[in-house]
């Protein structure tokens, strides 16, 4: 049961107020019509799914209804940081450095 700091409400809230919305930083291709089937399929479905540091999108569904990012260790479930949409994470996996 995660205790999640909402960067908009500026306090910790219970996991029940939030929903996970998948991997962060998957930008919609700017010109979808120029994508091949493979590129489009990868945008829609293919994910890093790492064991370890993961950047993921959550929404404070029962609270302020804002989406934001969480950097979390998917093995230990430790939340390393939260940051707003449009911001970059400061904690990243070793191989991504």
């Amino acid at each position, binding site marked *: 049961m995660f205790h999640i700091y909402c960067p*908009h*409400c*500026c*306090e910790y809230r*219970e996991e029940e*107020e939030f929903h996970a919305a998948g991997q962060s930083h998957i930008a919609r291709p700017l010109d979808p019509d120029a994508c091949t089937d493979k590129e489009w399929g990868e945008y829609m479905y293919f994910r890093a799914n790492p064991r370890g540091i993961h950047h993921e999108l959550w929404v404070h569904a*029962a609270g*302020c209804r*804002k989406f934001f990012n969480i950097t979390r260790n998917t093995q230990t479930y430790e939340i390393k940081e939260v940051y707003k949409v449009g911001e970059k994470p400061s904690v990243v996996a070793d191989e991504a450095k």
Partner: protein
Amino acid sequence: MSDVTVEAMEGKLVTDQLPTGAIVGESPLHHSDLASIAKKGPQQGGVHFHERKLKGLLTLRCAPSAEQLAVIESLLGVALPMQPLTSVTTDAISVRWMSPDEWLIIVAGEQAFEIETQFQEKLTGHYALVNISGGTTILDVSGSHVVDMLKKSTPVDLHASEFPVGKVVSTVFAKSGATICRLADDKFELVVRRSFADYLWLWIQDASREYGLVVKA
């Protein structure tokens, strides 16, 4: 009848939604006949319940510029609470912070249209003001055991050190949601959606049973 007002300045529609004359609105808990319960039911107990009904409720969406802030303050008579989870309450108006770009405004039922009209006339730039009076009701809960009842219903920390008077949170309430504002040490305001009101009323009765529930007219 030519009482239909359509204002479409700024490309938005504002209409008066209240009837004139003797038509009485029916709040979301109308069918529960709280008035009779208030009269005939228990007069003592640890939780007090009151439906503050037929108020004017408006959602303001805006990422206000300084200029917009000033206009809004002049229109509402109070400044928008900009700090997360804060609120302003006066006799005439309550404003609740909901989100970085969202506030809930509570006024007397008939004032909603007035505020909508004034915003329409005076506030420029990107914003939305939405009347949600029909879709929302306010449940005031108070009493010596009100915190115990709330602790059964919501996961937020209600301890005075974490949840002082004036704090407002939107959160999970039972299997629905509510916007909770602490009005006094032992008094809270719950803003809830109409369609869930009956369920929440059942829930609150159940959660209050061991403390005794007093319905206030």
